[in-house]
Each structure stands twice: as C-alpha cells, then as structure tokens.
C-alpha cells in the first residue's frame, strides 16, 4: 500500500523534496503545497529531481500555484494539479499522510 507525502518548502531553500524522493517507497504520492509548489516548475535547477523520480506520482495544489503567479503551462509534464477536494481524496486513498517540512 502507498503513502501520501506533502512537501511545503521550496527546493531551493530546503532539501525536503530531495529527502522525500530519496526515502519514499515506489508507488508513493508526493503532493507539493505552499512554497513546495516552486519545485513543480519547469526550467529550474531542481526540475531533474522530479523528472528522474519515475516511481513517484507527483501532485501540486492549484490554489498555491495561483497565489504565487505560476500558470499551468509552467508545470513539469506529468505532475497533476489538484484542488482542496483532490487533496482530501488523496489523503483518503492512501494509507497515511506524512508531512516533509
């Protein structure tokens, strides 16, 4: 069974995203929220961390992207944008939710 991990820190300021990718088991889901959404953008020095982690499904919270002026076309291919209801659905669908701060 799989777990849902949330990351709420910018990948340029903390290594939370790097750590969750390193320690998560295959089939896990990672949801980028708050400043974590910067990790979902294309063309950054952090992009390859996500594109290389093919056994993890990535999600990003749409309202946090919107607040920061990041449009949908800037998001790395394969990352799914979800709303708050989608966040709840993910929490229910996974065995547990763990935050990487």
């Amino acid at each position: 069974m799989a777990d849902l991990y949330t990351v709420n820190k910018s990948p340029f300021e903390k290594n939370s995203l790097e750590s969750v990718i390193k320690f998560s088991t295959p089939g896990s889901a990672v949801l980028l929220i708050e400043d974590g959404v910067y990790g979902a953008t294309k063309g950054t020095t952090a992009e390859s961390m996500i594109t290389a982690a093919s056994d993890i499904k990535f999600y990003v919270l749409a309202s946090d992207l919107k607040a920061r002026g990041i449009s949908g076309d800037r998001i790395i291919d394969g990352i799914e944008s979800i709303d708050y209801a989608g966040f709840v659905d993910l929490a229910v669908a996974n065995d547990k939710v763990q935050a990487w701060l």
Partner: protein
Amino acid sequence: MSDIKKFMYLNRRAPYGTIYAWESLEVVLIAAAFDQEVSLMFADDGVYQLVKGGDTSDSDMKNFMPTYRTLGDYGVRHMYVDQASLDARGLTTDDLIQVEWEDWETEEEVDNIVEAVDTDKVSELLAESEVVFSF
C-alpha cells in the same frame, strides 16, 4: 535627520510561505518616512516576491503584490534582482512586475526601477550600502 545613508533591504525568501517578505515590505514602507536612499535587493527565493500574476483569492491570504508596485512612490529608487537566481528558477525579467518611479520635485521619471544585475554587481551594491537589512 540630515545625514542621508544608503539603505539596502536584502530579500531572500519566497512570499507567503513565511512572513519574511511581508515583514520586509512593512519595514520598507515605515522607513520611507525617513528620507533615506533606499534600495531593495531580491536574491535566491526572494526573486519570487516580484513574480507577477499572483492571485490569492483561493488561498485565504492577503495578496500583497500590489504593494510592491507602489514602492516607487515611497522613495524606493532601485529594486535589484539577482540574474543568476532568476536563471536557476527558470524565470526572466518578463515574469516580473514593473515598478514606476517619479521625483515629484524634478519630475524626473523612470518607467521601471526593477533591474536584473549579475553576481558581481550584487556584491558591489551590498558592499557599498551603509545599512543592510536582511529578510
């Protein structure tokens, strides 16, 4: 106050996730009352503070981006952005807001005081500042 000093506000944090960006903005606005030479520097995740098009209506947070556009009216003469920090984040100056400035006495106008500078220039600007506030 007769002595005019060079003040630099160094912003290195993304907006919203922490309180730093908002606190910096508050201090800049307060300091505007004191007729000093005020510049702002945006580096590292601080460059995200100037990204245009943010809309916090779905996030239950105050959108303070419009306040940056008024800084020219508060005596801020320069808003520098570290080009290397933009590059690392896949951003260009086209992604950033523009801030107008006008000297009400001389009527001198500048269309946009937001300026991308290279690393050496960032170092130089920080070194020549007499007071640096770090956020």
